[in-house]
């Protein structure tokens, strides 16, 4: 499902009909996605949904078998310098060279980015409490994530890509990462794309969300739209029913007898009219958390 919202500026990531197979396994299936410029874009999906595969395509580490991938309007495989030079990336594996010292990592990474901001890097290093002389291999998991985040942020990238940034980290480091995301978007025009299955985090910081499942985008919209359009409604029927009747925009249903609960993706006024049409009255309605919306889409 392609994003319907048009942007005045060109999108930062534009993916059309992307398909990727690993042997017989289809990792991405005719996937299309547009990440608009500015704001935080949350990519949510379960394990093996295709989030990392999608991010690897954006970074040019996987070549599109079918379809196209454009980042800043460029092909990341053909032009790694043009694309990766404007991206800050933190991988899920915190893949940093163990033998380097923090100071060496900063000096080494600085060489690749002409926009490197030394004072900002130093500010981040101090706030993350990273010792310049410490070797990466001696850092804790959280410190490694902070070191990775430092080198991803210090060149003030146009696009910050975070792949499962919080997985396996304690609340303090997770807070640091969320603060970094917020600080990054505070710089005008910057974009954050982050994948996660910690939906409370996504809900806190994301402006737009895409749900990926089995290599396909199930839903993409702004957080407000998603929250407004997804409702849990309980309908009461005059007679007891064995099966729930069809309801416009319903994603899932549960219940028995005269009362049935639906999770719907439609506007409330339409929903009320539809309920009346099938002889039911709305007895309860509630907004859903992102967690509930995600589960209703993938189950």
């Amino acid at each position: 499902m392609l994003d319907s919202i048009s942007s005045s500026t060109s999108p930062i990531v534009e993916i059309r009909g992307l398909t990727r197979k690993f042997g017989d396994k289809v990792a991405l299936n005719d996937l299309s996605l547009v990440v608009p410029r500015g704001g935080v874009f949350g990519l949510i999906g379960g394990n093996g949904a295709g989030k990392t595969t999608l991010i690897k395509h954006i970074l040019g580490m996987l070549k599109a078998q079918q379809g196209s991938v454009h980042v800043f309007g460029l092909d990341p495989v053909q032009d790694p310098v043009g694309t990766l030079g404007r991206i800050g990336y933190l991988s899920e594996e915190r893949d940093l060279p163990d033998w380097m010292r923090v100071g060496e990592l900063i000096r080494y990474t600085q060489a690749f980015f002409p926009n490197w901001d030394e004072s900002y890097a130093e500010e981040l290093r101090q706030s993350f409490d990273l010792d310049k002389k410490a070797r990466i291999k001696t850092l804790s998991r959280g410190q490694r994530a902070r070191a990775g985040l430092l080198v991803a942020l210090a060149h003030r990238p146009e696009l910050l890509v975070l792949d499962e940034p919080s997985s396996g980290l304690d609340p303090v480091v997770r807070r640091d990462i969320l603060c970094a995301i917020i600080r990054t978007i505070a710089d005008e025009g910057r974009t954050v794309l982050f994948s996660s299955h910690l939906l409370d985090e996504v809900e806190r910081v994301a402006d737009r969300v895409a749900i990926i499942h089995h290599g396909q985008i199930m839903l993409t919209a702004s957080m407000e739209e998603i929250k407004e359009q997804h409702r849990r409604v309980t309908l009461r029927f005059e007679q007891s029913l064995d099966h729930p009747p069809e309801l416009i925009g319903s994603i899932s249903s549960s219940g028995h007898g005269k009362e049935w609960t639906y999770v719907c993706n439609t506007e409330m006024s339409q929903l009320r009219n539809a309920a009346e049409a099938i002889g039911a009255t709305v007895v309860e309605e509630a907004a859903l958390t992102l967690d509930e919306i995600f589960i209703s889409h993938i189950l």
Partner: protein
Amino acid sequence: MRSIPLAMTWEMLQRGRWYLIACFLGAQLIISIVFGALARAGVDFEDPSMVGVGASFLLTYMFLFSVSALGYQGPPSRLYTYPIPSSTIVSVHLLVSMASVGLQLWLTIFLMNTFFKTHWPLWGPVMFAAATVCSIQATIWLTEKSAWAPLAIAVVAGLLGFWYHFRCGVGAGGRFPTVLWTSVNLVDFGGFLAVTAASFVVGNFAISRNRCGEQLKPLGIHAWLCRVLDFDPDEKALPFRSPAEAQLWYEWRLKGWGMPATVVFGLFIGMTIWLIFVRDPKLIGTGFLVLGGYLSVPGMVCAFIIGNTGRLDTDFEMGHFLGSRPMKSAEMARTILKMTAQSLLLAFSIWTLAFLVTGAILLASGLAPADIIPKDVPWWSFLAAPLGCWAVITVLASIGLTGRPMLFAQICCAVFALYLAGVCLSVFFLPEKVREQLSLAVTYIIPMAILSVTVWLFIAALRRHLIDWSSAVACAIVWISLSSLVVLIGMQYPKGNLLGYFVLVGMAALVVAPIAAAPLAVSWNRTR
């Protein structure tokens, strides 16, 4: 699978099947090349002078098969959380090692005796190899994560080595092997049993202890050395001027030490052996020449360090860190080749300096120049050694840079298995004349294949804009120059033949092939 030992054995063999096959076939390749050449030269394998060769080969294969067995099994710590008694972990590991080493050596000896009529003994070396791998494995477990490990392994291997050499006549009337371990007497058998039993006891103690996270008490020397040597040479360094400079620094710090360290280590070991065993000044020069000439052998190991862009030593697939550098794959490959050239240059500079200093000392002590560099050593070998080393390292490193070394290992195994099958079938089914023609055809095909693949690599790299035309032309000039040099040098040798030139001209292409192969490999690895 209902039996734990069966499941463990299956897991180990499944994990190491390619190592086992590659190691066994590699061993057969080396031995068949050496003994095939000796057979062609008319060497009689029953001659007493071949005893030493046989004893050395058997020892080398015991070592090779043991390393493969210890390598493919993996650390026993992977089984610590399973409900398996320590004794079962020990028994299965040791029995699988003993069986695989024993079987590989038995088959090797059987094939050698069948095809080359070497009359090597079967049971003595096989039982010795099984007992040795068992004791070394137990020692490794006993000294796990301890600085004692090298010393303990050296002591155990040394004691067993003395036993082997003693049974081959060394120390009992001769400095070199005079007999092979033909008969296994009761003392031998008891010795094998005692070593094996002791290994089981030690192994069981070690695994039970390691399972609880306990280790041998360290001496503190390693920690002290780490503290002393842990200085930061780049603390006050200026920022890099370009991504290429930063990447070269990265490659050099990570891998550049390999070849220079090999030379320093080789010089140290060579000098130690000379001081203890040889002490003949006239052999120092030969020792230096052997080290310089065969530097490409340890270079093969360095090549796989240089060619690894993965996150782990065992994973050659390019990691996210390197893969997400805003740098072209071609430039990344160029820095790797540049670092390799610098590393080799430093290695051969150390070798040259050490040779010159030693030579000067020897000359000053009254030795003639001909005693330092034998007259039959041609001048061109001083050029061929570094070039050959460069070719070996960069070709193997390019294979590693593809991120798919196992694919190439499988292809090599398949080609060699086909070759072996062809040789075996031809021995039984083809007349000798046809066999000779076939062998000649294969000898022509190999350099032709090398040349064709090199041309294809350059075309592919040019089409993908990974190298420019000026580099391709420069490589062509280098190859033509080397080929011309081969012909010019060959003219000094009246016995030189066309086939020899052809093979050398083909091999000369390997010097320039990595210039195109490395960028292609990095690109193929980086974007999958």
